[in-house]
């Protein structure tokens, strides 16, 4: 592979990741369509390369959340049992699932992401009374986080862990199948099932994404599914882009960016859906 292609892979990942970072979203969902549409990469190669960049972004952005005490690491490791199990299931399924179904599934996730992008996230109703017999209580998952606006620690309860675990399993399957972080599924799981404060769920979800992706990434690595010349520059571009995007987070009109992103996501969904049906307008998706 020539150096110009490596550079363009880096630049594309950088751009996607920087824009994603500005909205606080992971870029994994853009990487696979970009690789397929702009670089003519096979969908399975794109998925394996993307999973590496998902790991890279999760690791690269974890430190500030940890230092800000927003990440609930106990809850993360409990939920990771489900997400990694899901990821291993996904690794087993990806060889069986026909490629058009993968494209179709990707289109569905893109549309869900567009919808989530437009809907404002509201703080979930807090679970206030903790049942001492609940799994969350027995595992000592309830915690607190520093609220900067209030200037003090705010305690929170973790609700319905078994439901959270089953949703996380699904998120793990999708993550491995599509090479994405599955934040689009993890966040509703955390909001509706576990009822965490938004900052805690974002930080904890981001923390978990790395391990989930490493479970499938490790399997793809030993299988030899990862094309290093694609995964390397894409991972590097994603990390640098995400860090740059996080810096720019406040400096752009988020609402317009949000609409632009939703439109791009829907356009990509249409393209993926057409690939599922075997129609190629442009690019060379397999």
């Amino acid at each position: 592979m020539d150096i110009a292609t490596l550079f363009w892979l880096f630049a594309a990942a950088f751009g996607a990741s920087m824009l994603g970072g500005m909205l606080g979203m992971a870029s994994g969902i853009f990487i696979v369509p970009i690789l397929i549409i702009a670089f003519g990469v096979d969908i399975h190669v794109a998925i394996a390369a993307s999973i590496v960049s998902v790991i890279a972004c999760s690791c690269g952005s974890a430190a500030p959340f940890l230092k800000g005490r927003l990440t609930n690491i106990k809850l993360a490791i409990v939920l990771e049992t489900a997400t990694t199990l899901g990821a291993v299931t996904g690794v087993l399924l990806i060889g069986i699932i026909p490629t058009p179904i993968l494209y179709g599934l990707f289109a569905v996730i893109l549309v869900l992401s567009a919808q989530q992008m437009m809907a404002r996230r509201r703080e979930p109703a807090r679970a206030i009374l903790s049942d001492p017999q609940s799994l969350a209580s027995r595992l000592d998952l309830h915690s607190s986080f520093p609220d900067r606006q209030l200037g003090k620690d705010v305690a929170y309860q973790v609700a319905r862990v078994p439901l959270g675990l089953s949703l996380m399993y699904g998120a793990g399957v999708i993550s491995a199948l599509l090479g994405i972080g599955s934040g689009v599924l993890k966040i509703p799981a955390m909001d509706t099932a576990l009822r965490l404060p938004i900052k805690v769920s974002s930080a904890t979800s981001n923390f978990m994404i790395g391990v989930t992706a490493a479970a499938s990434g490790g399997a793809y690595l030993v299988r030899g599914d990862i094309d290093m010349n694609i995964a390397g520059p894409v991972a590097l571009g994603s990390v640098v882009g995400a860090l740059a995007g996080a810096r720019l987070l406040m400096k752009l009109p988020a609402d317009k960016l949000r609409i632009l992103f939703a439109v791009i996501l829907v356009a990509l969904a249409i393209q993926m859906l057409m690939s599922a049906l075997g129609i190629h307008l442009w690019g060379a998706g397999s």
Partner: protein
Amino acid sequence: MNSLINKPDRHDGIIAGLLWYGTLIASAVIMIGIMLGALTQIDGAPNLVQTGQALITLGVVIFVLLPIIRVALMLVMFAHARNYVYTAIAALVLAIIGVGVLLGL
């Protein structure tokens, strides 16, 4: 009970450090690999291409290993704090990842 999270602290700080410096190292290794490849195109020295390739591969492998090392580190921390339930949970996560990798072989 005073959980790990309530202390702002050593544990979170060590995990944050591992992930941050690990990311820096992996990124730097990949970047050097790409640059070696680029240099070779100018000079025409074919030896560096393979070194560059090897470095890119090494960087990707570091990235994949990083979260797994993070779970192993948490296992050690929980074991050190004599929190055996969580030591077992961390071991379970590692075991699941291990099964996944074995399935890939």
